[in-house]
Every structure is written in structure tokens, then in C-alpha cells.
């Protein structure tokens, strides 16, 4: 049976993207990052984000491809 079989952690997709997941609980809140998912396309990323992070009562959830995020500076770097 497929269940309860120990399986090494694998990624079957050839081309995957990382998506950052943002959510908020109330209109007055700002969106904040709650995690990330890895998926080969936007639809699967939606499904994975919802499955992984929907335990809380978010009023909004958004995913963003990590590659679309423009970094200004990062830990260990000086502010330009």
C-alpha cells in the first residue's frame, strides 16, 4: 500500500520555482510572509500554499515567485 511507506525526500519536477507565501488575518494588518512553497507552475503553487498554510483564518493569501522579488540589500550586506 502507498501509505506509511518511508520514501526519501525527492523533487520529481524538472523545473521548479520557489514562491513566497504572504497572508493577513484582518484588514488592518499588513501582509506578512508566512512561508514558501516550491512548485513547477502557478496553479500547483496555489494549491500547495493553500494546503500548507490554511490552518489559520487568513482573510487574504498571496503568493509571489521568489525570482520576482527585487532585493535592495540582504543580511551581511551594507545598505547601498
Amino acid at each position, binding site marked *: 500500500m*502507498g*501509505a506509511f*511507506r518511508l520514501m526519501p525526500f525527492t*523533487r*520529481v519536477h524538472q523545473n521548479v520555482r520557489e514562491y513566497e507565501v504572504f497572508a493577513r488575518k484582518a484588514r488592518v494588518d499588513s501582509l506578512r510572509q508566512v512561508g514558501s512553497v516550491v512548485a513547477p*507552475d502557478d*496553479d500547483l503553487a496555489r*494549491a*500547495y500554499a493553500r494546503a*500548507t498554510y490554511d490552518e489559520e483564518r487568513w482573510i487574504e493569501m498571496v503568493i509571489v515567485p521568489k525570482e520576482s522579488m527585487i532585493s535592495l540589500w540582504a543580511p551581511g550586506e551594507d545598505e547601498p
Partner: protein
Amino acid sequence: MRYAEWCTAAPSLEADIAAAAMGLDDLGHSRVLYGCLKELPDGESVDEGTYTNVRYLDQPWTDWSQFVAANAVLDTAFTLMIESLAGGNVELLRSRLRKMLQEERYHYLHGRSWLREAPARDAVVSAWGEALEWFGPDGGDVDQLKKAGKIALGVPELRRSLEEKLETNAPSAGIAWDRWNPITRRTSEGGIDQGTLDMLQGLAEKRYMPAGGQRVEV
């Protein structure tokens, strides 16, 4: 239940989690539908001793392609029927099935994407045939309910919508309607084994309860 069996065996960690989440969703949907059945004004009496399922769920799946086909084809067929119920003139169903459809949207996205990723031809043919059996024959009970306005989609619309959703034509499947059972909505005998049924009904968990049936808070 079959989804949940893959919660540690899917091809990626995200797919493991999605399998568990979709399994939980569908158990919840079963509860809502069962509750509706008891409340429908002209509902038939509920025979609590019986259980039936499509043949595809009789045995645990042994290959991920079977999961993908069930998720893409059977779950979408199920969702179309829920859409049909929610779009009919029965107020109870119109109001109560909305959340179910919101959740099923993600099952659909998951199934459709995986179908593109991991073609599952044989499993799809099998699942599709069973979806058609479950919809029922032309001019049968589903079409009668459509005629009465209780549901929004008849059998031809359900079949066509399934093709549209999955962006492909139905595989040709000769269904032996003369063997079709209108109660089980399938042409074959059989079903899930007693152990699986016990798990579905929560009976399998009882052995973990202390004598006297007191719940242990952990």
C-alpha cells in the same frame, strides 16, 4: 481516505501535505453532504448500514499516477456534481455547498497541474470511465432532476464540462449500462474492505480509547 494514504508517499513534500489536506477536505465534504441528506425536505430515508463508492476507490492506489487520475478526473467530476447541486433550486444545497466549491477549486488546480506534469494515461481512462458511470446514463435520474430544476447540469452537460475542465476529450469507454446499479452508481460489484470502512467510520480508533470510553486529553 485514499488521498490520506499518500500523505507520506507522494513525490514531494508539498504533494504529501496537499494529499493530507485534500483528504481532510473531502472527509468534511462527506459530512456536509450526509447532513444535507437528512435535512432535505423530500429526501429519501438514510440507510445508515450501507456504504458505496466508485470502483476506483475499492483498493489502495499503488502508483502516483492513480492518485493523479483520481484527483484530476474523479474529484473534478465530483465537484461538477456539487456545482450542479449548488446551482439548482434546492435552497439547502444552494446555501450549504459554497464553501465546498471554494475548497474543491484547489483540488482541481492540483489535479490539473499534476496531470500535465505526470501523464497518467491508463489511470485516466479508468477514472474517466468510472466518472461517467457515476454521472449515470442519459435520461436517467440525474437528467430527471435537471428537468425538475433541482440540479443545474444534466448528464450531457456534466460530461462536456468534465472535458472542458480537463482540456481533453473523454477516452472512449464502452459502459455496460445493462449492468449499472442505480443505487451504487457502478456496473461492478465490490467495494472497500471492512478495515477501511471501519477507519472511515472512526471505529478503528476506538481501540485506542481506554476502557469505559473516556476520552484521554493529551
